């Protein structure tokens, strides 16, 4: 304290500059190994932040970026809305694409981000894209778990969970086991050190709370949550082997999307009920379907197997996007056509 009072004007200015630099760099001491990490052609949190805002700035009539909430470490969960009359909430079908629940699944962030970029760059030049942008409200939340993603980029490539300090020497809650519907059931763990730790309570995490509040507010007609890997199109339920009440519809949509994916690069994505793989509870799609009745899908992107697993080579980013684009367009079209149908 005494030292501070003895500082002269120059020292105060220097200290102020240091503080400003600190705050400009994000103002966090979160041991992330640097403020500008590099994920190669994959997008980091900072890059997603920059590029989403740039996309919105370049297409102001049809794109708007907003934060749907903050992560445990205080990062914004960015969403981009794409629609004509973007500042208005119109009575149009809403379709949502989310990605990056799991930190290490980098392609699951780039996939929805590339969707946003594609819609905005093709608007006005491509009749299909122009039509769907005019007639629907598309929301894209590419990175639900920014803290975990940052940690995966800077510190531990295979990190899965968020960065909650569990208070016992362990970190992280599996966000895709933290949703409320049948929370605590099979395929999740109460061990804080487990990679499928479900958290101390349903919706205990700010990230899942933000997604919940956003979806309750916007009531989408359909949703895709991107993950990797295994090349699967999964539909509810995940917590039980029983079929969902709308199982025929969900299966038909999943099969139709798989068919559209296959014709692009002859790559097979298997459509199946989520529990066909194994039971897992507390995930995004079980909650969205169980609580709000929304047809929704988890798409496990490339590759097929554990080699290369999560570390999908950069050369496969574009092919993955290319093959998944027609599936996304199909679901948007279905959402448009079925807008008056009640499930």
């Amino acid at each position, binding site marked *: 304290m005494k030292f501070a009072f003895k500082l002269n004007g120059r020292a105060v200015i220097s200290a102020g500059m240091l503080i400003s630099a600190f705050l400009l760099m994000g103002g966090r001491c979160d041991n992330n190994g640097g403020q500008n990490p590099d994920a190669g052609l994959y997008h980091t949190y900072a890059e997603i932040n920059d590029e989403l805002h740039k996309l919105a700035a370049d297409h102001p009539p049809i794109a708007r970026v907003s934060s749907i909430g903050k992560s445990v470490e205080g990062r914004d969960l960015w969403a981009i809305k794409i629609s004509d009359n973007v500042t208005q909430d119109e009575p149009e079908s809403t379709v949502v694409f989310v990605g990056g629940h799991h930190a290490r699944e980098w392609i699951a962030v780039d996939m929805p981000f590339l969707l946003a970029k594609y819609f905005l760059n093709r608007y006005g030049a491509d009749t299909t894209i122009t039509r769907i942008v005019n007639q629907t409200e598309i929301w894209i939340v590419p990175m639900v778990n920014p803290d975990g993603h940052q940690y995966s980029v800077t510190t531990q490539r295979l990190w899965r969970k968020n960065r909650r300090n569990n208070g016992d020497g*362990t970190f992280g809650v599996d966000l895709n086991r933290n949703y409320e519907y049948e929370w605590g059931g099979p395929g999740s763990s109460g061990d804080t050190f487990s990679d499928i730790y479900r958290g101390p309570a349903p919706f205990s995490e700010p990230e899942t709370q933000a997604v919940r509040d956003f979806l309750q507010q916007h009531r989408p007609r359909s949703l895709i949550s991107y993950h990797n890997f295994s090349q699967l199109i999964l539909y509810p339920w995940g917590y039980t082997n029983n079929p969902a009440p709308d199982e025929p519809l969900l299966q038909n949509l999943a099969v139709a999307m798989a068919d559209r994916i296959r014709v692009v690069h002859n790559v097979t994505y298997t459509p199946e009920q989520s529990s066909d793989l194994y039971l897992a509870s507390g995930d995004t799609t079980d909650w969205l379907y169980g609580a709000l009745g929304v047809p929704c899908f988890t798409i496990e992107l490339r590759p097929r197997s554990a080699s290369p697993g999560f570390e999908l080579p950069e050369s496969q980013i574009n092919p993955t996007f290319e093959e998944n684009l027609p599936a996304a367009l199909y679901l948007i079209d279905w959402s448009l056509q079925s807008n008056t149908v009640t499930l």
Partner: protein
Amino acid sequence: MGKFLLMLSGTLIICACRQQQPASSPTSIGLRKISISDQQTVERLRQSGVKILVQQPDYLVVYGDSAAAAQLRALATDTQPATEQDLTQRLVRIHFTDKARLQTIVDLGVDLWDVQGDSVTARVYDLYLEQLKQNGFTYRILKMDAGAPEDK
């Protein structure tokens, strides 16, 4: 004014740098790291009922409740809080016979990466390996440190 701003900024920095520390369970001792120099220590700990999460050549990571803490004290074992860097996991291939057995693997809490035919690739702690063994599963360790970079 400048001095006031400086002091205020300093306070803000200190606040920003503080890690979030939720309260842990009062009965939990958290994860503790124990340096080991011989196998006898490991055996003593194992027989005492303390749960061994990770067993490396030079240290263990253990956890448990207040009873475990008492056991550690009785064994006069020095411990320190474990860090994330201590939590080594193995990459393994585990064989199963049917879907119910696969679900048993999942429900242990392992980090399941891939299901191919009658086996899965998973990232597991030594504690889970022990439980797999007790449940009659066979497995093969692919990598002793699942997080280590691939050998080129």
